[in-house]
């Protein structure tokens, strides 16, 4: 059914890794960046998101909270402009909006599985999983790095041009998602509590 199909896209917005901080690794690479992100990920973060959609005159703004619980529970709770919750746990994605809950089994949709596995790869610092679906390009330096994810799967590539993750040290600060049609979204992530570095 179409609803399942729609949900494939949910993942695009999701998974923006909850990040971390740390001392710079001795040898700096994609693997070490991911490792430090994973080692210092926090259980929660705040996000704001701007979506630039071609047909609209102004970007759409939203904000909310991200929660991650090892090993595989991920929640994106949007609090404004309206309340909605997306949860990925095991191989099941649920999305609740306006009192309706939608469920998607990831195994049913290779595209969705690719997203989920890639994002989990990012969170757990598992470069091998990421590389199944994306080519990774790291640039910048440990203080200000950018990790570019380029889809290798043609089905995903037809929708997404690239995913660009910007970070400082072991914390992810911004995830920018560029669609092939020119639309893009930018998610800015900051620590959920002042005690976080």
């Amino acid at each position, binding site marked *: *059914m*179409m*609803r399942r199909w*729609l949900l494939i896209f949910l993942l695009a917005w999701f998974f923006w890794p909850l990040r971390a901080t740390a001392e710079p690794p001795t040898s700096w690479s994609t693997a070490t960046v991911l490792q430090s992100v994973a080692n210092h990920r926090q259980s929660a973060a705040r996000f704001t998101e701007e979506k630039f959609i071609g047909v*609209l005159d102004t970007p759409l703004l939203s904000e909310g909270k991200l929660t991650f619980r090892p090993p595989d529970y991920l929640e994106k709770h949007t609090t404004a402009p309206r309340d*909605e919750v997306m949860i990925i746990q095991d191989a099941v994605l649920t*999305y609740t909006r306006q009192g309706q809950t939608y469920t998607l089994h990831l*195994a*049913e949709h290779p595209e969705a599985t690719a997203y989920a596995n890639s994002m989990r790869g990012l969170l757990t610092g598992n470069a091998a999983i990421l590389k199944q679906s994306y080519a990774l390009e790291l640039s910048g330096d440990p203080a200000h790095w950018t990790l570019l994810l380029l889809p290798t799967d043609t089905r995903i590539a037809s*929708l997404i041009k690239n995913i660009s993750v910007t970070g400082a040290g072991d914390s992810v600060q911004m995830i920018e998602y560029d669609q092939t049609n020119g639309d893009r979204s930018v998610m800015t992530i900051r620590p959920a509590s002042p005690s976080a570095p």
Partner: protein
Amino acid sequence: MNRYPAFERRVPVIGLWLLILVLSITVILHTRFTADMSAFLPSNPTPEQAFLVDQIKNGAISRMILIGIEGGDARTRAEASKALGTTLRQSELFTLVRNGNAPTRSADEALLFDHRYLLSPAVTAQQFSPTGLHDAIANGIDLLASPFGLFSQKIFTRDPTGETFTIVNQLGQDHAPRSQNGAWVSPTGARALLMLQTRDAGADTDAMAKALAQVHADFAALITSNPAMAPLRLMVSGAPVFSVDSRRLIKADVERFSIIGSVAIMLLLLLVYRSVSLLVLGLLPVLTGIAVAIATVSLGFGTVHGITIGFGTTLIGEAIDYSIYYFIQTQNESEHGNPTAGMERFWPTIRLGVLTSVTGFAALLFSGFPGLAQIGLYSIAGLLTAALVTRFVLPHLGTARLNRHSLAGLGRGLAPVFRGLQLLRWGFVVLALAGLVLLIARHGSIWQTGLSGLSPISAQAKAVDDELRTDMSAGDARYFIATTAQTQQAALVAAERLDAALTPLVEQGVLTSFDSPAKFLPSEATQRARQQALPDRATLTQNLHAAVEGLPIQAAKLAPFIDAVEQARQQAPLKPDDLNGTSFGLAIHALLQPQNDQWLALIRLHTPDEDALKPQHITAALTRAMAASGVPNALLIDKDTESTRLFNGYLNNTIALSLAGLLAIVVVLGFVLRSPARLLRVLLPLLIAVILVMAGLNLTGEKLNMLNLVGLLLIVAIGSNYALFFNQGKAPDHQTLASLALANLTTVIAFGTLAFSQLPILHAFGSTVAPGAILALMVSAAFAKTDQPPAAA
């Protein structure tokens, strides 16, 4: 007394007999034989039961085959499922082969999108007013920002009010299994699943057999050509499997037991008669009876059921009695050259015996089960024919010339045995009282509940079916609402009105959801009303300009929307057949079916998990909603209580029928015997036999169903023959004793073989009547009058 043997009488009698025989055989040659178990479903049920029975016989479920593939690893199972699906789709035996969600997805999307203004319940004149459009487009923009945005942005300029999303939303979560590696799997993932729908009707058992053979052959070919698939196992279930298996079991059992019973009876008679020609003559009434019986059932019912033929074995056992009585009891007289001389002696008793048997079977004619009614008609026609042939044809066939072995010796040998039984008279009474106490004490465990006891399908096959059904979440919904209308469109309109009344129940949590044909396809009237709510191009353009005030979008960017609405105003309404090839097509054909000359709309109701709400609460809420909908002939069907009620209703019907049959036999006997004391002496042994049989079956752990009950009636009908012979005013002579023993033995052989049948229906008859017949004879002998010594032979 020389009334019969004249040659001029002999020719017309034999001619008439041969003519009837030829006519019967002609009818039989044109008879359709069936073996589907629906003959043992009620024929005159309540509307709710009629619905269930019709669904069982003709509904979508009667054509649905469920397949599971087990063993190997997940990927191999998925590969096998896909390959099997491909080959099955190429055969023309199936209208539908589903094993995944992908094949129909793009057709589903195209259908919904292309007809969004006809299908979306949000399309009203208000929605297209300036304020309505403002709110709807604001909501559409909201959707863009949501995770659904990636999809909705592709169609946003054509569907800014989000009608496509509204449709998808109201269709609800579909109940198909999930996919893995592109193929349906069970919830645990341990099985790949396929669902087939046969092209031919489920009632066509030959076609079902062919379709199933195709499935097995294709799977065998698949695993032979792919060594990796060797560990895979195929599970097949569904109504077609049951109907094919039932037929096979019935056919095999009927053949086997007819042959065993017939051969045993023939050997016994050969042993006693010591004459092949006498045996052949003795079989003539029986064979004529069988031929006329089959022809009568065929003419009366249009078809003859396999079970009826199987039951026919017992007819051999009973009808042969008449020729046994004839040959043996007329023997002395015929030795003096007059073949019908003894007729005067035995015929009145036989006539009464036939009358009581026919009375007993006549009760079955009124049974709500066509299968039982067939057995009743078959037995009546068969017994009457056999008796008449014995009475009027046999004497003309030169029986006098046969050299018959005297059975007086056997009778003399048996006489002390029968007399000995009389010593046990009180023993039987005590035993019967004990049996009665036992039955009263264990009355809760006497009867079987549920119709499933009548089905020949093994518990194992049922378990496989349950598993696959659960896997498929083909979730037999418990509650249905059914309504019929003259036309397809009228049925859809009725469904729409019910939908409107049911929607609040979903909001209140009484229902989790419901599947209605109107959700997949609104009626043409509704589609046209939506079209009429759409403004013309000029009005829409104007309204749109006003609507985008305050929204982050320019009206000019929504030009494709204006075109799409204009196009929708001209669109032809969607018809059910337009849905073919999409997953909605499958759904609509299951929920909107032609039934006789009418159309049936079905609404499947999904309720919260069991125990969350009491069934009474649910049915009360549903009944109120149905009344509020104003649909006059809507029926609420609760499958669980309905099938129990159906069974209980028919058990009660059969109890009433058996009692009526019993009463009729008592009346007939009372009328003929004209003495309450003699009547009591005839009936008491039969009552004792019935009690002992019931107690015996209960002790051996057998639960009685309605066919056992009919069997009890037959004990009375058949046993009364014996009781009558023992109550002719004097004790029976040796010839009579011998013929009674022989007749009893043939009856016991005929019913006894049925007791070994795997078919619950035949088994029930056999295990009841065989011991009952023996007991009836023994107890009748025990209660025989002893005030006069046995007459000399």
